[in-house]
C-alpha cells in the first residue's frame, strides 16, 4: 500500500516535471469530493472524446484542396480551450503554435503542428490512463485521497 502510494506520488510528480500536466490538473483534482467522486475521470473522458473528434476534423480540413483556415482556426481554438481546462500543457502549447501557422496560412506548418499535437495528445492520453489505473489500484487497496 505504501509502495503504491509512493509509486503514485512519483508518477504524478513526474507528470508535472515533464510538463505534461500543469497545476490546472491539480485544481481539477481539488474539485473532486464526495458529491462528485468521479469528476476528474468524467472530465478527462470528455476531453478524450472531444479531442479525437477535433483531431479528425483538423486532418480532414487540412486534406482539402482549398484549406479553410477559418474553420481550422476555430477547431484549434476549441482544442486549446479544452486542453487548457484540464491542464494538458503540452497539448495546449502545440495548439498555440498551430494557431500561429493558421494565421500565417502556412499549410506545411499546420500539418507539422497537427502531427505534433496528435503526438502530445496520445502521450497525455496514455499517461492519464496509466494514472487512473494506478489510482484505481490504490483505491482498491484501501487508500484515499488527497495525497499529492
Amino acid at each position, binding site marked *: 500500500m505504501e509502495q503504491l502510494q509512493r509509486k503514485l506520488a512519483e508518477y504524478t510528480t513526474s507528470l508535472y516535471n515533464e510538463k505534461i500536466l500543469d497545476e490546472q490538473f*491539480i*485544481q481539477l483534482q481539488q474539485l473532486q469530493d464526495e458529491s462528485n467522486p468521479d469528476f476528474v475521470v468524467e472530465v478527462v473522458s470528455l476531453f478524450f472524446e472531444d479531442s479525437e473528434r477535433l483531431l479528425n476534423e483538423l486532418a480532414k480540413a487540412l486534406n482539402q484542396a482549398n484549406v479553410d483556415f477559418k474553420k481550422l482556426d476555430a477547431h484549434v481554438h476549441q482544442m486549446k480551450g*479544452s486542453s487548457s*481546462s484540464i491542464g494538458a500543457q503540452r497539448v495546449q502549447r502545440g495548439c498555440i503554435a498551430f494557431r500561429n501557422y493558421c494565421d500565417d496560412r502556412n499549410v506545411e506548418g499546420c500539418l507539422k503542428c497537427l502531427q505534433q499535437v496528435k503526438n502530445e495528445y496520445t502521450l497525455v492520453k496514455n499517461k492519464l490512463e496509466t494514472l487512473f489505473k494506478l489510482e484505481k489500484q490504490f483505491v482498491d487497496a484501501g487508500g484515499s485521497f488527497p495525497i499529492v
Partner: protein
Amino acid sequence: MGSMLRMNRLLSSIVESCNCIIDPQLPADDLLMKYQYISDFFIALAYFSIPVELIYFVKKSAVFPYRWVLVQFGAFIVLCGATHLINLWTFNMHTRNVAIVMTTAKVLTALVSCITALLLVHIIPDLLSVKTRELFLKKKAAQLDREMGIIRTQEETGRHVRMLTHEIRSTLDRHTILKTTLVELGKMLALEECALWMPTRTGLELQLSYTLRHQNPVGLTVPIQLPVINQVFGTNRVVQISPNSPVARLRPAGKYMPGEVVAVRVPLLHLSNFQINDWPELSTKRYALMVLMLPSDSARQWHVHELELVEVVADQVAVALSHAAILEESMRARDLLMEQNVALDLARREAEMAVRARNDFLAVMNHEMRTPMHAIIALSSLLQETDLTPEQRLMVETILKSSNLLATLINDVLDLSRLEDGSLQLDIDTFNLPALFREVLSLIKPIASVKKLFVTLSLSSDLPEYVIGDEKRLMQILLNIVGNAVKFSKEGSVSISAFVAKSDSLRDPRAPEFFAVPSENHFYLRVQVKDTGIGINPQDIPNLFSKFTQSQALATTNAGGTGLGLAICKRFVNLMEGHIWVESEGLGKGSTAIFIAKLGIPGCANESKLPFMAKLTANHMQVTFQGLKVLVMDDNGVSRMVTKGLLTHLGCDVTTVGSRDECLRVITQEHKVVFMDVSMAGIDCYEVAVVIHERFGKRHGRPLIVALTGNTDRVTKENCMRVGMDGVILKPVSVDKMRSVLSELLEHGVVLESS
C-alpha cells in the same frame, strides 16, 4: 374804251413784270398777239403743272414739314397760271365779265404773291438750315463709321488676345506657354520677329531663350545693365526701342530698313509675390524681355491698340509662367511627401512589428512565468495543510510569502505596458501596518546577519495600527529599498524609521510641485531607510529611478537584479499619491532613501472593513455559496465541465449552456451570476451582455455578468467593461480564485481585480 386801253396797258405791264420775254421790236401786232397768246398759254400750262408736280412728289415723300407753305405756294402759282390763262381771252375784244374775272384773278394773285413773298422771308433760312443739318449729320455719320471701324478692330484684337490667353493658360508647361505666346503674337500682329530674353541664373545677363523664326536660338546673351534694358524694365508699358539695340539685333543686318521695334518687360513672379489681399506685388526684380519687330520695309507703324495688346499679353504670360512655376514646385513637394510617406509607412510597419513581437513575447513569457509560480504557490499552500513540524511550517510560510511577492513582482514586471499606461490599480485593503514592518524586518534579517549588518526598526507612536492601502505593494517598496540598503552596505547598519508625516516634512526641496494634503480619512506615512553603505554619486541620483539604469559603481559590485526595482517603486509610490527620493552625501558616505505614501485611516469612511477582519485570505473564508444559482456559458465542452465542477464544489447550483441563444433562452432573474467565456470564436458574447442588461435593466435582481477569458489584454477588458460586465477573470481559474471572486461579487457587485 379808255378803260379798255388802260386795262391793256396794265395787263401788258403785268405780263412784262411776269418776266415774260418781250422783244419791243416785234414786227406786227398780230404776230405779237399770236406770240403773246402762245406764251401765255404755255406759261399757264407750266404754272398749272408745277403745283401738280409738287403735290405729287410731296405726297410721295414721307416728310415735308411745310405743308402750309406748299398750299400757299400752290395757290400763288395756280393764280398766276390762272391770270395768264385768263389773259388769253383779253387779246381780243372781250366782255366786261371777262375783264372782271381777269381783274379778280389778278388781285387775288397779287395778294397771294405778296403774302408768299412775305412768308418766304421766314421759310428760306429754315430750308437752308435743313441743308446744313444734313451736311452735319453726314459728317457725323462718317465719323461714326470711322469709330465703328476702330471698335471693330479693337474687338478683333480683343478676341485674338482672349484666344491667345486661352492658349497660354491652357497649358502649364513653361516652354509651351512661351512658344505659344510668340507664335500667336506673331500671327496676330504680323510680326517679322518676336523674341524672348530670360535672365540667367546669376541674374547678370539676359539670354535669348525663344524666338519666333529660329527654332533653336543660339545662346546670345547681353548684360542686364544696358540702358535700353533698364528703360524697358523701368516701366510696365511697352517701350519703343531702336532697331539697332543689342536686344533687337537678332539677324544679320539686312539691306533694308528694319521695321519698328518695341519691347516690354514680363515679370517673373514667385509664389511669395502673391499676397493674400493684393495683386501680386511687383517687388520682384526678375524680368524677362520680350522684343517685337514689325516687318521691315512695310512702313507700318505701331498703333496704340497693338501696343495695348502687347501689354496685356505680357501680363498674361507673367501670370501663366508663375502658375507653371507654382505647379512645378507643388509637384516637387508632392513627390517629396510621397517619399516621406513611404518611409514613414515602413517605419510604422516596423514599429508595429516590433510592438507585436514584444506583445507576443510578453504574452508567452506571461504564461511561462506564471505557470511555475502558480504551481509553487498552489503546492506550497497545499503543503501547508499537511502535517508539518513547526520549523517546517515556518519554512513553508516563508516560501509562500516570498513566492506571493515574487508572483506579484512578475505580474508587475511583465505587465510593463500596464504600468506605463497607468492602468495598474492598487489593491486597497485594510492591513496591520506595524506587522508589515515587522515582516519586512524578519525577511531581511537573515541576509543582513550574514553580512553582519545591524538592522533597526523604529516606528513612531502616532502611527495607526490598522491602515487602508495596498499591503503587497507597500511591502514590495519597503523590501526593495531595505534590500538595496542591505545590498549596497558592506558593513555598518541599516536603520528603518517610520512616522506620520507632518506638513513641514512633506516637502521635498527637490520636488516643489509635490503637495501633500492630509485629511481626515488619510494620513501620509513617511519612511526613512538610512544605510552606511557605499553611497551614491550625486550626479547619479536623478537617474536612480529610471528603468534599467545602474550606475557604474553598482555594476562593478555585481549587484544583480533587473534594474527595475526603484523604477517600479517610484510608480507605486506615485500611485499612492506620494513621493520617493534618495539623498546621499557622496560615495562612501552612505545614503538615505525616503518615501511618503498616502494611506487611509479605517473606521471613518469605510465601515464595511472592520479592523479585526484583516485581509480576507482565501483559507479563512467561511462564506459558502450554498444554492447560489449561476449560469455558465461556454462553447467548449471540457471547459464548461471544469467550470461547472468548480462552481459545484463551491456549492453553487449550476446550469450550463453552450451557445448564445441557449443562454438567452434559459436565463432568468433567479440566476445571480452568469459566467461567460468571451473567447468563443465567432460569437459576439458582448451582445449577450447587452441583451441581459436590456432585459433585466437596472433592477436590483439583475444577474451579475463575469467574463472568463484567456486574454488579459486591454482590448478584451475594455470591451467587457464597455458592455457593462461586472468583472473579468483570467482562465484557468483556481478554486481559491473562484471563491474570492464570488465573494467579492456578492459583496460589492463587481470584481475589481482581473488576474
